[in-house]
């Protein structure tokens, strides 16, 4: 996290990756599991190569849904948290309903989503949004409330209004919280989109995304290809996580303590 682009960022995961893959192979050997329960990394890679055109096309489709839902969550989450951070009474009146929205199983909402957002991409984006929205709100709200009271006193003395206090003080101070929320959302977006494809993607030709491939490989018991699909979804997620990590670095490295000072 600290020096963003150093060797260790690449070398160590690679080494631990080798260990991980070694472990994987030995689990296979020791447990006597078969390929259609736990394929080896080699088998998965072979399947990925073999199926790469389908995987790529599907990843493109899922990426669109994931990106849409993620951006929606990032933006709406930001503004919702502002509202919640702005006043205690807004918080008391809105938070319980937000919690309910988050805690209602998506399947219950699917018919309504189908009806209002429409099936296909709009529905997929809505479901992805629903899944990645709350972590952002919960985090940013906690961040907005955690502002240093001395800084708040400074703003009060400058006669700052509530909006200035939130936008110029609480929001920058809460950025690390927001970014932690975005990081969670980034990992949720691709699986959210896959889930969304499952739930509402079908009604208008849901044979596009990774969600469909998961279904298809599953019924065809093409387990290595199924794991290759999961791997593709992980890679997609990594792109999102990397984007958030970059944003984190860009916004915080100059001043925040999670980045070590030049030399101190």
């Amino acid at each position, binding site marked *: 996290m600290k020096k963003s682009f150093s060797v260790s960022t690449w070398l160590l995961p690679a080494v631990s990756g080798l260990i991980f893959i070694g472990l994987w192979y030995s689990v296979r050997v020791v447990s006597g599991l078969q390929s259609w329960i736990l394929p080896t990394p080699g088998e998965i890679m072979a399947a990925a190569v073999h199926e790469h055109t389908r995987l790529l096309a599907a990843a493109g489709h899922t990426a669109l849904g994931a990106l849409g839902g993620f951006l929606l969550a990032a933006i709406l989450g930001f503004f919702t948290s502002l509202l919640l951070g702005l006043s205690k009474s807004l918080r008391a009146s809105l938070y319980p309903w937000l919690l309910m929205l988050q805690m209602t199983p998506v399947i219950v909402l699917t018919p309504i989503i189908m009806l209002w957002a429409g099936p296909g991409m709009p529905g997929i984006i809505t479901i992805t949004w629903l899944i990645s929205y709350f972590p952002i709100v919960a985090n940013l709200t906690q961040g907005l409330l955690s502002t240093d009271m001395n800084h708040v*006193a400074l*703003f*009060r003395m*400058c006669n700052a209004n509530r909006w200035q206090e939130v936008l110029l003080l609480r929001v920058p101070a809460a950025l690390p919280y927001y970014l932690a929320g975005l990081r969670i959302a980034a990992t949720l977006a691709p699986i959210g989109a896959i889930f969304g494809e499952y739930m509402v993607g079908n009604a208008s030709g849901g044979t596009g995304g990774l969600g469909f491939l998961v279904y298809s490989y599953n019924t065809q018991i093409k387990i290595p290809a199924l794991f290759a699909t999961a791997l593709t979804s992980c890679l997609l997620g990594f792109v999102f996580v990397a984007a958030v990590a970059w944003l984190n670095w860009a916004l915080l490295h100059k001043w925040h303590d999670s980045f070590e000072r030049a030399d101190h």
Partner: protein
Amino acid sequence: METVPPIVKFTSLQKRYGVGPVILDAINLTVAPHDFISFIGPSGCGKSTILKLVSGLSPGSTGELTVMGVKPREARDRQAFIFQDATLLPWLTAQLNVELPLRLRGRPEAERQTIARKMLELVGLAKVADYYPRQLSGGMKMRVSIARALTLAPQLLLLDEPFGALDEMTRNRLNEELLAVRAVAPFTALFVTHSVSEAVFLSNRIVVMAANPGSLHAEVAIDFPYPRRPELRGHPDFQAKVNEVTRLLHEVEIPPSS
């Protein structure tokens, strides 16, 4: 003095934090326009609390306090506060930290930058305008905080040990600069310090406080005319006042029991 309405008026004010012990008791004080009052007293006697009360950041418990005739909070737009800690925003450069109060009042960017730069020059920090707080030394941070408060040209300035972290020469120079600023844009000042000579040099009134609970022990009038020149510090009358305040201070400072 009878005709001019007071800038700050404490009437039998008492202060506790929550349900804690009495911190300040029976505070009666009337601050006239253009007073420069220094508060001096033992650590923990309630000096910062007095300033927090005047600023409205902390409410009084019983008694009354008005600032410019209204409740403290309502007079905030005419006050500025230099806190005991520098309280800089870590994500803003020195320059932007100084600009902050102007930004909060919606002043245009060009004006903000000019004023901020002037104030940074005043405190000798123009060279580090682009540094982030974590790159500044303790004294430099405090000076940025002073520059920030001065941008507003307030009617009432609250200063909580602003010069405590500075070396003597910088401190003396800033004492003089502060009076020079005040000559151009007059303000009333409530000033907390631990330096008797600084208090004598700056103020027209010095309030010596006692602790347990915090109360106003004595007041000393310092009637050297303004503008005051640096040479004043060498004058025997100056030394006499310093000695008088020091003596009063020794009266209240029983070594803290425990």
